[in-house]
């Protein structure tokens, strides 16, 4: 028994080694390794362009108050006070005050056609009951003008009697993490596992095509059980994925030293419920099982495809499956302990994502051990089924049993 196990292990590693070296020691691998740079580069260019367009629009936007000069100063002071409350990206457009003409209503309408600014909202009329014109999507700017109006009027009426409050701000570090922090950690965990598998597991789908096209599959099948071939190929490409993750993990770890302290503090607040070290181990374990689970399904399905065109056709349903599992797991992470979360944790293809989210939400460790065993059991099952389908459908072994097989055989004969 142990001799057979040892032989199978040796065969698996032989296949894995071949696939790993055949993938890594090629110029194309460099392109694959640096794909995130290319992706990030395009993202940065697109983001910078969009930000520039949005920024220029924001710079020209204004809230306009058509008020007498005497009141304009109170508006400006109130605007300065209120503006300090908002973050830059949440602040309302800058304030412009205009001296009223004989027809303030017409003047307000004309302000929307001004050449040197884009009016988001325009206030005119008596201070106690102003009229505010606004663009349909700029209700917050209109409300801001109303608030400004109230503040300015109060300042004007109370003058020096207006109460002044001087608050003292003291830094306070919370002892535990909040529910919001845990939710965020869970989301990042789910997203992290999803992102990595989306990026890496899909390449497994076409891996048997090489053997089929080169007729090497006959040599492999004569020497090694097909299950070992499948597992070996899966592990070989998982090795490539680990290399990819290790490379970018190292790069990001170095880059993190350049991150501003405020961002570092924000990231530090994302403390998962099981603790940082356990979470890191579980994250890698769930990345492994997610890769193996999805990879074994993709490998089994892809092995049935005989042409590159068929393999390419499979990429859409594969992406849909992955995104579906991500959506299910994200929903589960938002509702820990719910029936939906339990379903996502048990359903084999979403289990690694959902359990990674659970590691951020809940402190118990034992469910993770059970989940990992459960997921690896499904990996074995998927590999077994994939090899069986390959043996029957491609190598034409075993009795033609199922209706599907007969249909496929007839279809193949017809073509």
């Amino acid at each position, binding site marked *: 028994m142990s001799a057979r196990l040892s032989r199978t292990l040796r065969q698996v590693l032989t296949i894995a080694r071949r696939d790993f070296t055949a993938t890594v020691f090629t110029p194309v691998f460099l392109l694959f390794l640096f794909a995130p740079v290319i992706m990030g580069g395009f993202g940065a260019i697109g983001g910078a362009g969009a930000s520039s367009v949005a920024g220029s629009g924001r710079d020209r936007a204004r809230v306009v108050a058509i008020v007498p000069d005497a009141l304009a100063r109170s508006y400006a002071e109130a605007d300065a006070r209120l503006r300090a409350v908002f973050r830059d990206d949440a602040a309302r457009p800058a304030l412009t005050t205009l001296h009223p003409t004989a027809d303030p209503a017409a003047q307000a309408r004309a302000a929307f056609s001004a050449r040197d600014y884009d009016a988001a909202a325009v206030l005119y009329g008596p201070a106690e009951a102003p009229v505010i014109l606004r663009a349909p999507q700029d209700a917050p700017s209109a409300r801001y003008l109303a608030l400004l109006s109230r503040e300015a009027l109060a300042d004007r009426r109370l003058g020096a009697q207006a109460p002044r409050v001087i608050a003292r701000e003291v830094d306070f570090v919370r002892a535990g993490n909040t529910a919001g922090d845990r939710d965020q950690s869970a989301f990042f965990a789910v997203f992290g596992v999803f992102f990595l598998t989306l990026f890496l597991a899909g390449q497994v789908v076409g891996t048997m095509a090489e053997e089929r096209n*080169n007729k090497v599959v*006959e040599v492999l*099948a004569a020497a090694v059980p097909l299950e070992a071939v499948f597992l070996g190929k899966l592990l070989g490409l998982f090795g490539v994925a680990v290399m990819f993750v290790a490379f970018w993990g190292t790069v990001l770890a170095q880059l993190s030293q350049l991150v501003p302290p405020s961002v570092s503090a924000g990231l530090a607040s994302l403390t998962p419920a099981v603790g940082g070290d356990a979470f890191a181990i579980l994250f890698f374990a769930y990345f492994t099982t997610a890769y193996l689970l999805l990879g074994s399904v993709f490998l089994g399905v892809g092995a049935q495809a005989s042409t590159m065109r068929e393999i390419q056709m499979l990429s859409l349903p594969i992406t849909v499956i992955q995104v579906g599992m991500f959506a299910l797991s994200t929903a589960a992470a938002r509702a820990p302990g719910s029936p939906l979360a339990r379903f996502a944790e048990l359903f084999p293809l979403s289990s690694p994502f959902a359990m990674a989210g659970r590691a951020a939400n809940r402190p118990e460790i034992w469910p993770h051990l059970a989940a990992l065993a459960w997921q690896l059991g499904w990996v074995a099952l998927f590999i077994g089924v994939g090899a069986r389908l390959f*043996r029957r459908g491609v*190598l034409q072994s075993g009795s033609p049993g199922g209706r599907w097989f*007969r249909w496929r*055989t007839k279809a193949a004969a017809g073509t």
Partner: protein
Amino acid sequence: MNGLAVEARGLVKRFGDRRVVDGVDLAVPRGAIYGVLGPNGAGKTTTLRMLLGIIEPDGGARRLFDAAHPSDASDRVGYLPEERGLYPAMKAREAIAFMGALRGLPWREGRARAVAMLEGAGLGHAADTKIRKLSKGMAQLVQLLGSVVHRPDLLVLDEPFSGLDPVNQEKLEALIVAERDRGATILFSTHVMAHAERLCDRLAIIAGGRRRFEGTVDDARGTLPARVRYVPRGDGDMAPLLPPDAVRDGPGDGDAWRFALPSDGVEPVLARVMAAGAGIAGLSIERPGLHEAFVRIVGDAETAGADGPPPPGPSATDDAGSMPSDAASSVARAPAAGAPAA
């Protein structure tokens, strides 16, 4: 433990509604060169694939050495499939080492042996050349070396000579003999009789998915009677003096007559001829080649059709619980009248 490297009993394989292999029995003695002969589509490759465990039979049993399943003996087997297959991006040396590693040979040892074998085959210069840059014949040779690099006890070659030029065919024949001399058992399929005639210690002929013959090359040739070629000295009418099947050759062959060697020998015929005063200008007894025997056996099988009765052979006569292990020949169809016993 018996003296057989490969045993098959009643192997059946169906593809759809067609029985591609229909109850094939094989018994390959250890250390022998054993040929599986048959026309295209006879079921040779399917039989070999079942023996190796690449595909599972729908019926029957097979055993390599004493392993319950072929995969249990895979480290002792080398295999060259009909459709050659190598990774194009691999170097020749690595490809051989990889095939050895699949069969349990350590990589380092495999690389060392690969270099030596390539040099021995005159391909030492190509050790670090990628497969895609080799000619088809060279790549085929590399794959062949890969199938023996781990020094298997059983070497299975499916149509090994196809695609090779005469020089490489001779190299391959030498390699097969060398492997046999090393102690390996060779099982190969072919439909080229010349190779089988030169190499095989024993052979089986498969046609229509069934084994039609099993025995030595001489046994196969013995399924046809020897032919007598007789040239009379005079011009008289010889037909009444010769056996009923005697036919006169066309012009240009010295008025020769040909007939099957009678079961009681040629002497009674010669006595009649001499008594009639016809004389003997020429006489020879010609034994048929494997080619003729093959054509005849396969032709008989095709005439009988695939639905004919199962061929007599070890599987039909042995006890149900034992694998065929005799070395006696068996012929699927009864030999033609007048044929001598094998």
